[in-house]
């Protein structure tokens, strides 16, 4: 059994660590490129959302490398992600690929099926082993996210442009050669150290922008056209509302304290939207309010074209702006998104925020003079 999985940002580190520890052979899909997207777009339903198309591209490129089993998570609606597995399986079947697909639906739906599927994947491992491997995988997720957070801070302040990213690039080159969660964790820790040594400009206070929106688009840099990097180069410190680690903490762990603070943030959205409409729309609204209260300079919502839950959030966000006054921009990405136009919009947004900040400072000075 050679197992593969779809890409989603740093998730490959955790899955590789997990499967290595369980002794399952794993094929990491080649990083997403234009070819991946082209394959996916050609073979997927036209109106499907972007993540599904890229998943298909990932599968086929992995199958070319010898994978014969695909693992993917599932959910029970109402977002379309819950039915990805079934549709993707049919697409691959019609193409003549003979692959096995293991779909992990959340255990609360039917825990026996869930356990059976883990058993199928893990083979002869003992349950203790499996539990430990999962625990280590979640540590990888946590540390990898911490590493990215360091990068977000550094990029906005680095003396030599590109310093942070060249180190991250070296990390990616190095980590694919590692085997097992211990080695992967070691590499991550090493690069956390290396990243914190990036030289900073003294006394800069960068603009702060919060990213909200659909989880896949936020986490996968190819899909959001490296928005974190682009904003970083424009001298912006980026805050991410949804990270893999946060997802793991909310959905898989028993961290009660975190869950409570998570619910507290969600409650902020009550005057605008007070129930789950699927996906992360509720979080999008809640986090936008939270970021406004924290005093961030701007908020960017990102979603794939046709994302059903985020469209609901998009139509509510103008009201959040009216009430809180923090500028919010929505970016919709799909297979047709051009990099130049996208970058121009980011630049314009950052310009706008800078001007706002300056005029606010001027107002402050004026009030001092008058006073």
């Amino acid at each position, binding site marked *: 059994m050679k197992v593969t999985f779809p890409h989603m940002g740093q998730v490959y580190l955790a899955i590789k660590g997990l499967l290595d520890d369980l002794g399952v052979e794993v094929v990491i899909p080649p990083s997403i490129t234009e070819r991946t997207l082209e394959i996916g777009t050609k073979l997927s339903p036209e*109106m499907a959302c972007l993540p599904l198309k890229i998943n298909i591209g990932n599968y086929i490129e992995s199958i070319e490398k010898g994978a014969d089993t695909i693992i993917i998570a599932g959910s029970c609606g*109402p977002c*379309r992600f819950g039915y990805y597995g079934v*549709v993707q399986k*049919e697409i691959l079947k019609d193409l003549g690929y003979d692959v096995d697909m293991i779909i992990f639906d959340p255990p609360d739906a039917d825990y026996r099926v869930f356990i059976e599927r883990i058993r199928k994947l893990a083979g002869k491992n003992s349950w203790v082993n499996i539990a430990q491997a999962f625990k280590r995988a979640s540590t990888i997720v946590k540390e990898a996210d911490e590493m990215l957070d360091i990068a977000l801070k550094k990029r906005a302040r680095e003396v030599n442009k590109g310093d942070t990213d060249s180190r991250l690039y070296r990390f990616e080159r190095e980590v694919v050669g590692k085997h097992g969660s211990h080695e992967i964790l070691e590499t991550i820790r090493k690069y956390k150290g290396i990243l914190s040594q990036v030289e900073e400009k003294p006394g800069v206070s960068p603009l702060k922008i919060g990213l909200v929106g659909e989880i896949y688009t936020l986490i996968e840099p190819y899909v959001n056209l490296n928005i974190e990097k682009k904003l970083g180069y424009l001298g912006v410190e980026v805050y991410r509302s949804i990270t893999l680690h946060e997802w793991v903490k909310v959905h898989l762990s028993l961290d009660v304290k975190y869950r409570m603070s998570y619910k507290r943030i969600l409650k902020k959205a009550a005057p605008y939207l007070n129930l789950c409409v*699927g996906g992360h729309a509720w979080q999008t609204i809640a986090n936008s309010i939270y970021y406004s209260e924290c005093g961030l300079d701007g908020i960017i919502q990102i979603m794939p074209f*046709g994302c*059903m839950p985020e469209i609901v959030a998009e139509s509510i966000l103008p*009201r959040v702006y009216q009430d809180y006054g923090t500028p919010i921009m929505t970016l919709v990405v799909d297979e047709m998104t051009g990099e130049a136009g996208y970058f121009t919009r980011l630049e314009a947004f950052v310009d706008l925020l800078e001007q706002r900040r300056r005029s606010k400072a001027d107002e402050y000075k004026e009030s001092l003079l008058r006073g």
Partner: protein
Amino acid sequence: MRIGIPRALLYYNYYPLWHSFFEELGHQVVTSSVTSKAVLDSGVMSCVDDACLPIKLFHGHVVNLIGKVDAIFIPRLVSICPEEYICPKFIGLPEMIKSSIKGLPDLIVLNYNAHRNLKDVHRAYVELGTRIGAKPSQAVKALQKATASQQAYDLLLKEGQTPLDMLNGRKRIGEGEGKGIIGLIGHPYLLYDEFISMGLISKLRARGYAVLVPENIAQPQIEMACAELPKKLFWSYGKKLLGSGLTMLKGRKVDGIIFLSSFGCGIDAFIVELLQRYNHRLYQIPSALITVDEHSGQAGFNTRLEAFIDMIEWRDGREGYISAHGASVFGH
């Protein structure tokens, strides 16, 4: 009080229930006008660009009601069946309307959620009743009467009527029978809105075909067809379309099948994809997918429809005729 009901989205499924519920409670019901270019345009203007056609249309119908009524009824249907959902956009509909349209009258929102338990629905209507000033006991009574008229309506649908005929007050089936039956798969708010579907049903009838719509397929058959899926489908209306489509295909009840979908419909993207794949693999009944949006034109629509019907008729006549020369079967 004059209560306005937008003639869009689930109106076609539930209007007998909603009409009689409000009327039983002594209110006057005003339905928005039939969809027209003006209604659609006002919807497109007020809604976010990324929404799908039916949602934009709903916005248009709400705008159409402003000034004519004291309150507008907006259903928030989270789930109509335990463990299932409807589209996310239906769930967030009242919020979308509130954020996008200015100068709204009072909004009466029905919070209908049967995700846990079907009995919650009862409570939703009692709440709705008290919201517009009725006593709970009156609301219960009104709901009973309303449910009865809804059941009568559903029964007629199962007997083969289409909601469109019922709305227009002509109960007739067998119009244009003779040549065959075309199965139509599409959400009710597309199929029965004559502006959006560009009179698809009457055009097919004029060409001599009877139509079979998802509303005509009995629920047990839908459930049976969907039970074969590898994973339970969690969209109620998606399930209805897929199940009735499979039933039509499996029983070879239809000579052709047309999928009517709106641009940007997330659920249709998956349902139609699956149906087309199953059809191609197992049944091979002629099928066409027609996608409509706010820019659709009549001419292209008619051409596709004519081409589709021609294809079916050619197939009828000469499918078995395979030329010994290897040249085109159709003699061109």
